[in-house]
């Protein structure tokens, strides 16, 4: 179920309010009061924990603030420093972009491939589905990050495998780009939740399309390209947006695998980790806030871009389609 669709349905629903009114006809005021009473926890929480912090963060981004003395207004100095005078910042941007734009497409491609393999009538599918989902379930935990650290160690099983296959071993912790790929592999390994969403989408595609295409002589690739991909495109869009945003926010694996430093040589210094270090190790809270706002604007633009271009490639079934 896509977010947009749900929103539309909600609007439609509120237009077609209960037609048959029971005898105690409530006044409009009472209805509004009741509605707001029920959603008031959300509104209060949204104001206190989201809107006020976001605005505070905007203000702080123009200040020098270390949590112990009062914020000191410095105008655009933080932003100026970020853009012109902080090579480490640009390095972390580059690392994060590689992480997101290599990791997310590979993860989704993998998820789709496995989902298509599992979209059969076999009774074992339930078991496989759970097994493939498992990495995704436990993947965000510290335990798994510790495990990952150790299987990629110099004596870990990955290097044993490489040796066995006759490939030169890689010093994953000695080489910044190898260390980044170690993080990307961890993110691909957790393809399970996207796979479940794809699987649900594949089940929703009517078999008659494939039967008709086969009768017209379409081969496997044509069926995939002309039926599966277009029919699945709203779900691909949903996965793409959600996974991209969450990839930008990745923190735990980089924190654990590099023991909180972002090393080796800042190879795993993801944006969130650098922001965390600036804010909570160096106590440059103003600077960290400026980083957060750049992130917010960037993610906003990127999401907007994905949604706008989606008109070109996302196929929404017409109302009577199903």
């Amino acid at each position, binding site marked *: 179920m896509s977010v947009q669709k749900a929103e539309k349905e909600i609007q439609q629903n509120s237009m077609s309010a209960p037609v048959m009114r029971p005898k105690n006809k409530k006044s409009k005021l009472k209805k509004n009061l009741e509605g707001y009473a029920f959603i008031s926890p959300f509104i209060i929480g949204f104001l206190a*924990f989201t809107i006020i912090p976001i605005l505070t963060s905007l203000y702080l981004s123009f200040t020098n603030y270390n949590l112990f003395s009062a914020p000191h207004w410095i105008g655009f100095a933080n932003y100026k420093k970020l853009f012109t005078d902080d090579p480490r910042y640009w390095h972390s941007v580059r690392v994060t972009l590689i992480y997101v734009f290599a990791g997310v497409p590979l993860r989704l491609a993998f998820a789709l491939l496995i989902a298509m393999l599992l979209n059969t009538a076999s009774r074992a599918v339930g078991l496989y589905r759970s097994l493939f989902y498992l990495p995704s379930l436990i993947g965000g935990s510290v335990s798994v990050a510790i495990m990952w650290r150790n299987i990629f160690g110099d004596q870990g099983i990955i290097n044993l495998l490489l040796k066995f296959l006759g490939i030169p071993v890689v010093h994953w912790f000695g080489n910044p780009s190898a260390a980044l790929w170690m993080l990307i592999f961890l993110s691909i390994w957790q393809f399970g939740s996207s796979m479940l969403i794809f699987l649900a989408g594949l089940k929703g595609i009517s078999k008659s399309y494939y039967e008709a295409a086969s009768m017209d002589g379409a081969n496997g690739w044509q069926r995939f390209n002309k039926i599966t991909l277009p029919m699945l495109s709203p779900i691909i869009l949903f996965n793409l947006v959600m996974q991209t945003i969450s990839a930008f926010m990745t923190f735990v694996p980089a924190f654990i695998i590099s023991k909180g430093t972002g090393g080796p040589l800042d190879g795993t210094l993801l944006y969130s980790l650098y922001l965390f270090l600036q804010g909570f190790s160096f106590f440059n809270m103003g600077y960290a806030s400026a980083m957060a706002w750049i992130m917010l604007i960037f993610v906003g633009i990127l999401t907007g871009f994905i949604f706008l271009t989606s008109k070109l490639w996302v196929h929404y079934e017409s109302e009577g389609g199903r």
Partner: protein
Amino acid sequence: MRAKSVKWWIYHILVGGFAVLMLYPVIWLLMSSFKPSNTIFTTAQSLIPHPWVWTNFLDGWKGIGGNSFGLFIKNTAVLVILTMIGQIISCSVIAFGFARLEFKGKAFWFAVMLVTLMLPNEVVMVPQYILFSKFGWLNSIKPLVVPGYFGQPFFIFLLVQFIRTIPRELDEAATIDGCNTFSIFSRIIVPLIKPALATIAIFSFYWSWDNLLGPVLYLNSPTKYTVSMALNMFLSNESVSNWGAMFAMSVVTLIPVLVVFFIFQRSVVEGISTSGLKG
């Protein structure tokens, strides 16, 4: 018949083999935790420990700085349960408002909620920290628990979807029988959304149990540490090369997650498939 069974074998060897390959690191972690610490990496190629030892679990359970691992589990359990209660209550109330009541500005607030779904957490991290420090909530679990009592967008979204599948005739009949809005909620809707509430409870458990960033920011004294932080501490002391204890406690930390998953597989899988909850 025979041709079909060959195809069947190929499929299961391929898919099953791949599943085992995916899970091999986890199996390796589990088996390594039964190996003597100094042989974990010298015997990394073999899965079966020789000899089997329990000492890693005993070592790890001693914990850090005199605080046993049991204390960290207890701390985490308290955090998980308090958060879960808050999220279940607040999200069901809020979702009922969005799904069933008509009021001015509903579409607006629903849209706001959907936008907060996509908000990067980093943006609010610094000011929230400042806010909670002003409240005097540092070094307590309040910053981790209290926001849960004001709803969680993903859970609200999931519940709204679920409530909308319940026929409105039930509400109308109850109204004619003299129920007010709150008793429609508590007597009609809540009993019917129990499956969805179970899904929420499960994900709430996963997220609090695994949470690292929150505890790292807000908990300072080791007596308040959660399991994630304890594992992080093990890692910082890794130089002493007691991998066995660290692996053993990693396994212990994974066990509740796996047990809950295997008991509630259906709710978990359906929760993700229908709402895109990130697991």
